[in-house]
């Protein structure tokens, strides 16, 4: 077994603006700088901007644009999606269904399309919203750009096979 390791500092900001009860715009910027380990240095960036709109009670639509830069290799893309609260629309089934379509371009020409279908249950007083989605990460829900890139971008798919 061969191990390699490095340490990094991470800094980021998030912001959100809610001009009405049904509309919210948000953004996120994260940066990590590698300065030691593996004999290399570099930076990782995550930038995202998006908005969500509650079309009617229980029906949410959103869009996100994002860029993920891993030591010079850039992934940029967008995602559009929505969620539909079944109970709020008279369907006798608990939970909220979610749908997201995302597209990402890597720095060396490959393009990835992604469709995600989900089912969300809210516990307690929480309000259901898509979790396995760009909406969550663009709002800062997953800390550090590297973790976000791997958790929600499908980074492994647009990088060439080892």
């Amino acid at each position: 077994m061969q191990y390699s390791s490095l340490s990094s500092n991470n800094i980021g900001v998030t912001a959100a603006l809610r001009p009405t009860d049904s509309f919210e715009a948000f953004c996120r910027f994260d940066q990590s700088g590698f300065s030691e380990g593996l004999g290399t240095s570099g930076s990782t960036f995550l930038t995202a901007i998006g908005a969500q709109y509650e079309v009617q009670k229980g029906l949410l639509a959103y869009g996100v644009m994002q860029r993920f830069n891993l030591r010079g290799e850039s992934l940029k893309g967008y995602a559009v999606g929505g969620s539909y609260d079944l109970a709020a629309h008279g369907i006798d089934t608990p939970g909220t269904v979610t749908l997201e379509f995302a597209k990402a371009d890597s720095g060396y020409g490959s393009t990835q399309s992604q469709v995600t279908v989900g089912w969300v249950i809210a516990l307690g007083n929480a309000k259901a919203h898509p979790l396995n989605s760009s909406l969550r990460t663009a709002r800062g829900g997953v800390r550090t750009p590297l973790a976000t890139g791997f958790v929600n971008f499908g980074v492994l798919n647009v990088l060439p096979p080892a």
Partner: protein
Amino acid sequence: MLNINILFSAAVLMFVAPSAHSEGLSFDGIVSVSESAFSSDLNSSDRIAFNLVSDVTFSDRFSVGLDIDYGQTSAYNKNINMRRFQLEPTIQFSNGSHVGGYLQSVSFSTSPFGLDLESYGLFAGYDTQKWSIGRIRGQYNFRHAIQFTLVQ
């Protein structure tokens, strides 16, 4: 260094504690199961995922956020497993501001490659009904391992 088992144990305690008893404790969360299909000019794959985002509220001023994510991606004829835990103790102030810390552990595994990302840091923010802003600062340690197998 964080240990994913410690975080998992803490997560279990977080679930047990609110249901055990005691007034003032509450648990609010969102659970999601999902499936993703990927296609690119390099590869096609799919991923199943389980996600939990929750808050255990101990009082008006103190809560602990708990996230658990699990995903399995099938790509290049291999399964890539991802696990993530995040704990975020947070103090809320009456003027709308908050401060807290986060502990996050992410691990990926696919033969013969493994990757661990452990991070921790502080965050602060301010929320109103109309807008919010937050700032985060932290550090993470990144380790990957390659398992070499001798074939005889």
